[in-house]
């Protein structure tokens, strides 16, 4: 998506991977440790940790340490932000139609002034 909001980019990048979506689906049912997350996915703990880091950077998952065990929880707020995608498109299309109007009206209103959409 064409956006200056790098965080939203990270959210979508994080969501683009099926293992990470599976992890999120598991966390939607409740918190889990890294070990609990690794078990059903047939991937190593380091691999799960790597996915979790991507999800953490995107703000989709929060990790807390309890002694030697780290627990993971879903952060629904980041997903809500992804929903603002719709709002992003509204702004996007408003901008495009402004540019289109300037171009089309420039053509008809001032034929000798050249095209304004430069």
């Amino acid at each position, binding site marked *: *998506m*064409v956006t200056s909001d790098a965080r939203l*980019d990270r959210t*979508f*990048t994080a*969501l*683009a991977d*099926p293992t990470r*979506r*599976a992890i*999120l*689906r598991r966390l*939607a*049912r409740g918190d889990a440790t890294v070990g609990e997350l690794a078990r059903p996915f047939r991937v190593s703990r380091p691999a799960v940790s790597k996915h979790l880091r991507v999800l953490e950077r995107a703000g989709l998952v929060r990790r807390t340490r309890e002694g030697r065990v780290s627990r993971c929880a879903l952060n*629904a707020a980041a*997903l*809500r932000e*992804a*929903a603002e*995608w*719709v709002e992003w*498109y*509204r702004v996007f*299309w*408003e*901008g*495009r*139609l*402004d*540019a*289109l*109007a*300037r*171009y*089309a*009206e420039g*053509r*008809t*209103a001032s034929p000798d002034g050249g*095209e304004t*959409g*430069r």
Partner: protein
Amino acid sequence: MTTTHSLRVSRTIRADAETLFRAWTDPDALRHWWRMNEEGWAFAFASVDLRVGGRYRLAMTDPAGRTHVATGEYRQIDRPTRLVFTWDWENPPDRVGETLVTVELRAAGPGTTELVLTHERFADAARIAGHENGWTQVLTRLDHHVMEENA
């Protein structure tokens, strides 16, 4: 949570429908307006295969020099009143599944046209805003998209 999310924007423009239809479908016209209004953005390229089932690619370059390509397939072409096409971004991290854009052009007076743009099938994004249950559906749908893409 089965409703399709959509958004609608409109403009009344002092130009005839044919001029506007051409602006959407002719690369020589698109180059004059297809970019962000902000400083540093530029039109990159446009390719248009204007027939039902034909594809388009519209590209702009951001201030950092990255190219963002929007792409899709024409679904309905009624020159000069209606254009329907699928829409998605081409860069893998940007992709979130196929959506549908409808551009309608209606005469609003002499030499004036009302343009109504509808962008729909945001079911994924709408569900993302939902509760845990909606969440699971979103993720499952995303799985389907990825499987379809890899198929």
